[in-house]
């Protein structure tokens, strides 16, 4: 297995967010991760990427135990993550933000680093803003910058934490295409997203998390039929059979 979590536990002080979770992901898989707010999805990504240290249990990448390796070290091993709340380097330009990843994450130098940073900006549509200060970006642009920075580290495992929220349908489709292309180039993808539909249209596997535990795991269509999952997502757009997200009728304009 490419990524293996063995009975991982994580608590913040007294509140146990992940009581004990095991998960195995094969190389090149495209896994969607869903679950209610506070289920521990982002915490899980933290534990995988090394931003958080698990209280117990094991994290293995390509067979090697990486539990004791710090975030930078895991990035060098090919794990890249986006932050749900974007964490750009506000004092740097958009280009410099991506350059940090290319230089230290992908360990590239000079022109190679520049090229990798440019490519990541190009793929995420940020190239026209390359020389703008990162603190001038809107929230959506910052989310794209998260993605660009993750891509620029040339990862083998890409952890995406709600990168599609707030996008228009056309943008979601563009994003899906980009992630699928990255996945097809051999990158293993774990993607947390509340837009279940978008996720289901591309993921080969869906993992449902609730209270830090996996309540369903398997083919997306089958997982969504599990009663417990339907319960959680009751009233959401699960029953809709469309492949791509549809514009919601009676949009937010009505409120204005």
């Amino acid at each position: 297995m490419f990524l293996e979590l063995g009975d991982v536990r994580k608590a913040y002080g007294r509140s146990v967010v992940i009581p004990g979770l095991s998960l195995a992901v094969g190389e090149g898989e495209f896994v969607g991760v869903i679950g209610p707010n506070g289920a521990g999805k982002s915490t899980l990504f933290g534990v995988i990427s090394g931003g958080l240290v698990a209280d117990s249990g094991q994290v293995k990448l390509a067979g090697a135990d990486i539990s004791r390796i710090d975030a930078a070290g895991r990035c060098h091993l090919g794990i890249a993550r986006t932050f749900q709340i974007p964490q750009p380097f506000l004092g740097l330009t958009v280009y410099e933000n991506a350059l940090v990843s290319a230089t230290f994450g992908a360990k590239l130098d000079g022109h190679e680093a520049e090229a990798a940073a440019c490519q990541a900006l190009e793929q995420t549509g940020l190239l026209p803003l390359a020389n703008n200060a990162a603190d001038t970006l809107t929230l959506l642009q910052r989310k794209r910058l998260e993605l660009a920075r993750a891509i620029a580290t040339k990862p083998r495992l890409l952890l995406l934490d709600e990168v599609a929220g707030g996008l228009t349908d056309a943008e979601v489709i563009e994003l899906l295409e980009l992630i699928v292309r990255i996945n097809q180039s051999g990158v293993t993808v774990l993607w947390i997203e509340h837009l279940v539909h978008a996720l289901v249209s591309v993921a080969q596997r869906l993992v449902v998390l609730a209270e830090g535990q996996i309540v369903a795991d398997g083919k997306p269509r089958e997982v969504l039929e599990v009663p417990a999952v339907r319960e959680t997502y009751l009233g959401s757009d699960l029953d809709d059979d469309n492949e791509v997200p549809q514009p919601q009728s009676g949009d937010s304009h009505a409120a204005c």
Partner: protein
Amino acid sequence: MKSSKILAMLVLLGVLVALPWIGGYATQRLMVEVFTLYAIALAWNLLAGYGGIVAVGQHVFIGIGAYSLFFLSTSFGLNPWLMLPAAVVITALFALLFALPMFRLRGAYFAVGTWVLAEITRIAVLNSDWLGAGAGMPLSTMMGITRWLRNAGIYWAALAVGVGSLGVVWWLLRGRLGLALLSVRDNEAAAAASGVNVLRTKVILWLVAAAITGLAGAVAYMNTLQVTPSASFSLNWTAAAIFIAVLGGIGTLEGPLIGVLVYFLLREMFSSYGSWYFIVLGCIAILTMLLAPGGAWSLLTRRRPLDPFGIRRMLS
């Protein structure tokens, strides 16, 4: 760089090098203070502005640098100028020794920790007879050197420290380390997630700042010919460095240049007012932090961005 810019810099450098033939001893001694304090403020600003490391006890490196030079030169009868590299190495080693305990401390604890380190070191020196205890050490090896040569030699050393430290910091900021530093300053968690080794970056910065400060301290005390624990391990050094950095603009390469000019201008004009002078300095620093947190440099660059040192990376 434009050739007119290079020409202007060469002319300025020429005038500075020729100062011993132009100006008197008093001017030279003042300029030694200016250049050494500039280097110290540059180092403090490097730590705080680029590494997010607030070192309240940075003066410990001044004492270590000065004592290294005085001890080696006086005990072994060696030329003090030749001991300057040794002062750099010893200060850097001292900083390396204490890097690991210091960097276990976070935020405010680190700031206070550096100050405690400075105090402990001062007290240790104060109780070391081989370092002259409270009376300190003279620089007896200066005896045989003519007054002109001594003053000029110290001045040139200070000039080299000022220009050299700017050059070294400029070179560092333009390179990989600079990019790592900026990312760490802005967001440590994101920097680590992007593959930046945060601790190593900070330790390198700490060593560079220590080396610059130690060298500047050594030259500053060559100027006074006597080093004592209370003066060289004095918080006043760091206070002045902080004032200069805050006034000029923390986290900019240009800030300390402006800050040091303002600092000495104020001192030459108002130092006769005694303690009032310090109160005014403090008020100016506080006002700067409140009204223009980016310092004087941010006021100058508010309308149009300036990058005279060319350290930003632009995509063309």
